């Protein structure tokens, strides 16, 4: 195996394994009621966040959705603070006020996730406007589900980004469903990326979830930006959510989708694929380090305190 690929595979595996294991642990703990807000697991979709974020630089910024654990972690968001946030503790990344759907790590460029579908799209675009205005060469990545594409805000934001040639990468995680509603029951055609092209930007689709392709697409974009060729781009990644929309369980019994449909994606699990590219000792080293980190993070959350009552009234306004 070529050395470059090997280095990447190791990086990817580390990030991907960490996210998968964190979410599996969340799923395991969830029924104990220690986690205090609804969780939308990204299990099965993590490779998109990892592939994109591994190509980013520290000063690049990401915005995510309520299904944002993977985005947050892939971009380097603090794990302890994330788990504490899920536990509703004052040590959480949002001091316990946000929960699973409102993760943030400003120092790492994770500018927040939102529970209202589509709301972070224009925020990403506005943030990228400021970057361009300041002649920064940083970019913004806007992660969305294909459901967000239905919203008017998507159209308005993509149009403005194209108009102003802004440094923003839209990443659409098209897992085919918005809750239980299939993409084709909300849209006549399966061609999001083609529609986006008509706004005046490069837009492509990667339909096999290949983490290397996702990484490469992002890297190429960054290279282009560094050369001063500033335009937005759009990447549609076909993917699949393994768990139910919200919560830790499987939901194939509900009947809105079939296990068969999932099969391709489970076979094609990027985590398994990456592991197969690594020497066993390398992967097990990664695994044990990550397992320990996760154990510590949950202990940190357990031991942290709930916020004091007076915190109810803080953080409404700055400077007050």
């Amino acid at each position, binding site marked *: 195996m070529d050395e470059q690929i090997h280095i990447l595979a190791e990086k990817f595996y580390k990030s991907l394994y960490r996210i998968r294991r964190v979410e599996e642990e969340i799923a395991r703990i969830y029924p104990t009621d220690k986690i205090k807000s609804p969780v939308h697991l990204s299990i099965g979709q993590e490779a998109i966040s990892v592939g994109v974020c591994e190509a980013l630089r520290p000063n690049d910024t990401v915005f995510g959705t309520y299904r944002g654990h993977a985005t947050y972690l892939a971009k380097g968001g603090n794990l302890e603070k994330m788990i504490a946030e899920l536990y509703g503790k004052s040590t959480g990344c949002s001091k316990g006020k946000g929960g699973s759907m409102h993760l943030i790590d400003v120092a790492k460029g994770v500018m927040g996730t939102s529970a209202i579908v589509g709301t972070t799209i224009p925020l990403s675009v506005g943030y990228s406007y400021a970057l361009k205005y300041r002649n920064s060469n940083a970019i913004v990545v806007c992660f969305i589900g294909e459901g967000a594409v239905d919203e*008017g805000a998507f159209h308005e934001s993509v149009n403005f980004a194209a108009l102003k040639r802004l440094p923003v990468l839209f990443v659409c995680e098209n897992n085919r469903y918005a809750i239980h509603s299939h993409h084709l029951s909300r849209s006549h055609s399966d061609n999001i990326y083609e529609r986006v092209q008509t706004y005046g930007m490069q837009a492509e689709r990667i339909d096999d979830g290949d983490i290397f392709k996702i990484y490469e697409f992002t890297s190429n974009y960054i290279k282009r930006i560094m050369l001063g060729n500033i335009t937005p781009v759009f990447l549609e990644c076909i993917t699949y959510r393994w768990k139910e929309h919200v919560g830790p369980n499987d939901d194939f019994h509900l009947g809105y989708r079939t296990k068969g449909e999932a099969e391709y994606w489970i076979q094609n699990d990027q985590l398994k694929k990456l592991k197969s590219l690594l020497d066993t000792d390398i992967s097990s080293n990664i695994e044990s380090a990550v397992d320990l980190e996760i154990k510590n993070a949950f202990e940190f959350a357990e031991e942290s305190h709930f916020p004091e009552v007076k915190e109810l009234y803080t953080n409404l306004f700055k400077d007050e």
Partner: protein
Amino acid sequence: MQRILSYPEAIKEAIVQEMTQNPSVIVLGQGVDDPKGILGTTKGLVDKFGSERVFDTPLAEDGMTGVAIGAALAGLRPIHVHIRMDFLLLAMNQLINMAAKMRYMFGGEVFVPMVVRAIIGKSWGQGAQHSQSIYPLFMNIPGLKIFAPSTPYDAKGCLIQGIRDNNPVLFIEHRLLYYQRGHVPTESYTVPFGKARILAKGKDITLVGISQMVIECLRARQYLKEIHIDAEIIDPVSLSPLDINTILDSVLKTKRLMVIDNAWMTCGAGAEIVAQLIERNIPRDVVIKRMGFASVPCPTTPALEQHFYPDAKEIALNAYQMLFSGKRAWQPDTELQIEEIEFKGPF
């Protein structure tokens, strides 16, 4: 034997009965035809009435509200369902600039018979964007009618009234009310706009509770009984138009009023009720207080969230203080097993 239904069962029954008798009634909204069926309230409707009458929509609250208005202009009676009231913030333009105004601005040439069902969230970490209860924003707007029933009986009757009404109607449901059970007649019936309901008689203090807060008021009433305070509990049911007279009569009797908003208080229903009473020159010795959400977004952690919402104990305590200010110290009995509130009716 009284037939007992849950609140969501009552809602579904209202829809089924109206859809059965009027082919113009349709149901649209994200998830109305999915396996969960809006917490059960629309479950199975698509099988019964077909996918032209019961359909899922794209995630497009503004556009789909306009679609519902357009369908209403053409004579259909859409019921547009939003699983979170917060999502109405995307639909304000169509609801306020269009639905509320079309009849007036076209001099009566058209009418817009539609129902917007909006569910309020609470607890389990719903947080800032999934817990809002923004009915005051709609109460300010002429041209909209608003129901916020708390009992299964009213849920059915108000919804049928709303569907038959020839104007845009906002129908507000609180998730926690979904646990309510009570008497619901089998036959079809309507509950009128502009008529409040006295859910419990009392002589010492009037507690007006909106939506789920009326349940907290009923619980508070139990606590207060212990110290021989007899609270009268009023559910406005209809927020627009608002029945101020029922509240006024009660206040004239009890001389004490607490309004417990299921929302932020500033420019809220409580403020409006207080202002209307003052304008009606209620006697000078009436004491008045408002309660409602803390004036911040709703935090997710239960450690803070429990202080964000008024609850039965806090209501009882405030009522106690209003009656016996500073005279003796009392705390609602935390051990007292508050029996589950169940509505026996008939109303």
